């Protein structure tokens, strides 16, 4: 199979401009006759659906939640990057592009990433115009902060709930188009298959989760904005409902999954506390602007952290990476935390945690500044702490409250305990420059695709990519595709391809309901998660991955013979819906291990223990693995690998260094 990335010819900085000015268009009268199905209403989906509707297309949007406003983009905390250079600190489109390529450990496409950096500034303008209340300075200008892997301040934010504010902006645009009758919204609907006619995506089969009925929806094109698959690990920072099902159904219909093993393990999450836990909670990376990460220098030191003197603390990120310090990229910070804990220096009841401590900046950075502003001479420590607390509260208040709620500890007084957890998946459906999968008419946007983050995503870049894809890329690229399809009239959903697709979906549901086994869906999900975390998590090796593949196959067989789903397939049955999602995770997990086993190098978040530098850093093998691993589904548990070679014409390839 020929994987053509369709990167436009020409100079890097001119590619997107040239593409936009030469792309074929659809005239307004024809747009009104063209239907587009958008699945998912997070940042990518809501922005795509509303923007396409503004252009005049007839849009149908779907989400499994009770309202489009609930999509998990809402939980993003720290911020969104844009190369505005408002801080006059040396930022530029090229620098954002370069940081992203380097942060991704040289495993993403130059053309895509440069476009992302170019449109980043438009996103901020658009969001402000929508009324997104970003943080501001007293002079009325927008405020910025830093994120990992970067030496400029280019992150725009709204306290610790930037994702919420951006999503509500996109959601309000979407609701406006719903109110105007340009978008038909289907909440509490889940996509269960892509319908292809003559090899082209022409619609979906969706289940109404309330009535249990299957529905057929035609579209000239289908746009998947269905997020990532981190929940394959059971415990992750994803929402409970986040799943791979829509992307996986597309994969089974021929769309390739690219780099599925590239998983982001986020360094600052609240540690696992017990068996009861259903999910993990992130503490934003933005906290590393002001929090310093440390463990005791003495192994097994179980004193109260506030009683451990300065010279007995190991600020290991500042020690190992003096140039970036606490703001190294996520993959580096996560591995460093694991290394310290594995070596016996971990803290807290489980010993699988490190401290994130705000006291130093609370006093020295903010406390002193406030004291100066207020004219307080020689403030004592308590005064500094009190003054600094107010500033920290304004910057991150909700995060500190959340931490306190979950752990019952006060992070203003005691350092936070944190540990890495599954957060984001860089891998996803393979797409070309136009965000089209290898199935014509089927597109993937946002976290659902693989394209922009390589082997490691930099902080505050997910929001940027979701909105870039939805607001500024798909309106052009989809138009290019639809311009060749204007003579296709809407196809009746009585077409035999819809018949067959619906029959297959119904048969799968019937099969699930007929098992009537003894174990809950949840119990299988939990077991899958353990296999994935232990053998395909932060550190991987060939023997473990081979074991994991065998274990997942066995678990899948057990699931299909012994899962118990209560109720019936009629009406509202959340257990049945969960069963379908876990069944898909049980296939995806295997592919992730296959991909991780194939990639005999370490890069970004993919760390193969066999391939590391003497200092324990990821060791790439650019000669053999500078490619996108795209997997074509052949049968259950069988895939064929297709390689898209990555070419770097502008960036000099180097060993990534943050020292």
């Amino acid at each position, binding site marked *: 199979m020929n994987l053509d990335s369709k990167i436009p010819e020409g100079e890097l900085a001119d590619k997107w401009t040239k593409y936009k000015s030469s792309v074929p268009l659809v005239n307004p009268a024809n747009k009104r006759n063209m239907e587009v199905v958008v699945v998912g209403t997070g940042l990518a989906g809501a922005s795509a659906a509303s923007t396409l509707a503004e252009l005049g297309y007839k849009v149908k949007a779907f989400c499994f939640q009770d309202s489009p406003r609930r999509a998990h983009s809402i939980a993003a905390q720290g911020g969104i990057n844009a190369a505005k250079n408002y801080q006059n600190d040396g930022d530029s489109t090229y620098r954002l592009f370069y940081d992203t390529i380097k942060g991704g450990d040289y495993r993403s496409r130059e053309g895509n990433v440069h476009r992302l950096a170019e449109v980043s500034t438009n996103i901020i*303008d658009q969001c402000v*115009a929508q009324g997104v*209340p970003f943080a501001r300075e007293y002079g009325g200008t927008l405020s910025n902060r830093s994120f990992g892997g970067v030496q400029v301040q280019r992150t725009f934010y709204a306290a610790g709930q930037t994702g919420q504010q951006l999503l509500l902006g996109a959601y309000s645009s979407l609701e406006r188009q719903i109110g105007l009758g340009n978008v038909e919204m289907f909440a509490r609907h889940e996509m269960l298959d892509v319908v292809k006619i003559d090899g082209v995506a022409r619609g979906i089969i969706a289940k109404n989760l309330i009535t249990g009925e299957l529905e057929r929806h035609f579209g000239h094109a289908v746009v998947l904005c269905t997020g990532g698959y981190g929940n394959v690990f059971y415990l992750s920072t994803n929402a409970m409902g986040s799943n791979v099902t829509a992307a996986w159904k597309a994969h089974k219909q021929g769309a390739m999954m690219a780099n599925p093993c590239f998983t982001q393990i986020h360094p600052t999450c609240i540690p696992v506390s017990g068996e009861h836990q259903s999910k993990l909670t992130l503490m934003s990376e933005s906290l590393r602007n002001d929090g310093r990460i440390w463990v005791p220098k003495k192994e097994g030191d179980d004193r109260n952290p506030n009683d451990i003197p300065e010279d007995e603390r190991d600020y290991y990120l500042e020690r190992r990476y003096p140039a970036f310090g606490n703001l190294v990229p996520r993959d580096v910070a996560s591995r460093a935390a694991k290394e310290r804990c594995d070596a016996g220096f971990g803290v807290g009841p489980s010993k699988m945690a490190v401290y994130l401590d705000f006291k130093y900046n609370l006093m020295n950075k903010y406390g002193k500044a406030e004291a100066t502003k207020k004219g307080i001479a020689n403030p004592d420590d308590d005064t500094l702490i009190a003054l600094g607390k107010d500033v920290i509260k304004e910057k991150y208040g909700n995060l500190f409250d959340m931490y306190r709620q979950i752990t019952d500890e006060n992070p203003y007084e005691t350092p936070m305990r944190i540990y890495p957890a599954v957060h984001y998946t860089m891998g996803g459906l393979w797409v070309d420059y136009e965000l089209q999968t290898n199935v014509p008419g089927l597109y993937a946007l946002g976290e659902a695709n693989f394209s922009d983050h390589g082997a490691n995503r930099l902080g505050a870049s997910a929001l940027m990519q979701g909105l870039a894809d939805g607001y500024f890329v798909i309106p052009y690229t989809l138009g290019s595709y639809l311009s060749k399809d204007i003579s296709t009239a809407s196809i009746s959903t009585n077409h035999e391809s819809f018949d067959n697709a619906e029959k297959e979906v119904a048969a799968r549901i019937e099969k699930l309901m007929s098992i009537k086994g003894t174990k809950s869906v949840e119990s299988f999900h939990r077991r899958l998660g353990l296999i994935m975390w232990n053998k395909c998590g932060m550190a991987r090796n060939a023997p473990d991955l081979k074991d994991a593949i065998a274990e997942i196959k066995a678990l899948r067989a057990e699931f299909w013979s012994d899962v118990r789903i209560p109720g019936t397939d009629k009406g509202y049955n959340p257990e049945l819906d969960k069963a379908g999602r876990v069944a898909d995770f049980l296939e995806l997990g295997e592919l992730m291990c296959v991909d991780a086993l194939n990639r005999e190098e370490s890069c970004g978040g993919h760390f193969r223990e066999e391939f590391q530098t003497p200092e324990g850093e990821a060791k790439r093998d650019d000669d053999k693995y500078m490619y996108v691993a795209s997997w074509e589904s052949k049968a259950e548990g069988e895939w064929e690998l297709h390689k898209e070679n990555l070419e770097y014409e502008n960036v000099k390839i180097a060993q990534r260094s943050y020292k």
Partner: protein
Amino acid sequence: MEKVLNINLKVWRQANPEVTGRFEEYKVETSPDSSFLEMFDVLNEQLINSGQEPVAFDHDCREGICGMCSMVINGRPHGPKKAVTTCQLHMRSFNDGDTVVVEPWRADAFPVIKDLTVNRSSFDKIIASGGYISVNTGNAVDANAMLIPKDDADTAFEAATCIGCGACVSACKNASAMLFVGAKVTQLATLPQGKAEREKRVVAMVNAMDAEGFGACSNTGACAAECPKGIPLSAIATLNKEYTKAKMKGF
């Protein structure tokens, strides 16, 4: 050994909107570190293992931000703690042996779907009627071209933190949605970008609110007291002010 709490639950069970619901009693053993929803996970696991139907309840992010979870716990939306959603309520707020009564949001505009799950699409319809700034993608000027005083930005942000959960409606004896609508109106009327259509917006949103069957406000303040995000009662004052001004201008 890990500490364990024994909780007696009385949970509202209702198979679908057409049938009459009733309370069912269950016993659950839980860790004090579990969240309220994790305690429900344990209950559901028990029910499934004993061949019964699990309790249907809405939830998703479990971080207090998506607004999907919605339980009335001992008569209070999101339970006993201030400024906390159901998913962030932890069992350490309860004592061993406690009886806890759990009901769905109750309001005509939020009909029950099943058990503790209700239909809140009326909120979406209110937003669709005018809870936005009419700006198509691509029309924006440079973000710093418009300076917004920090205090205004902060006021707008505070109002914009509403998660649309509906606790305000559930807490109100009139099932009024004034706090929800007031929050959105406050956000957009405070910002210069939102001023162009402020009159049209507030009238449309209030009309939609009435059409969806929400009640009127009688200033008891239960909504603000139970709001998990601390949206202040002044949002309703702003809503009334904006509405009156718009009406006087003839909108």
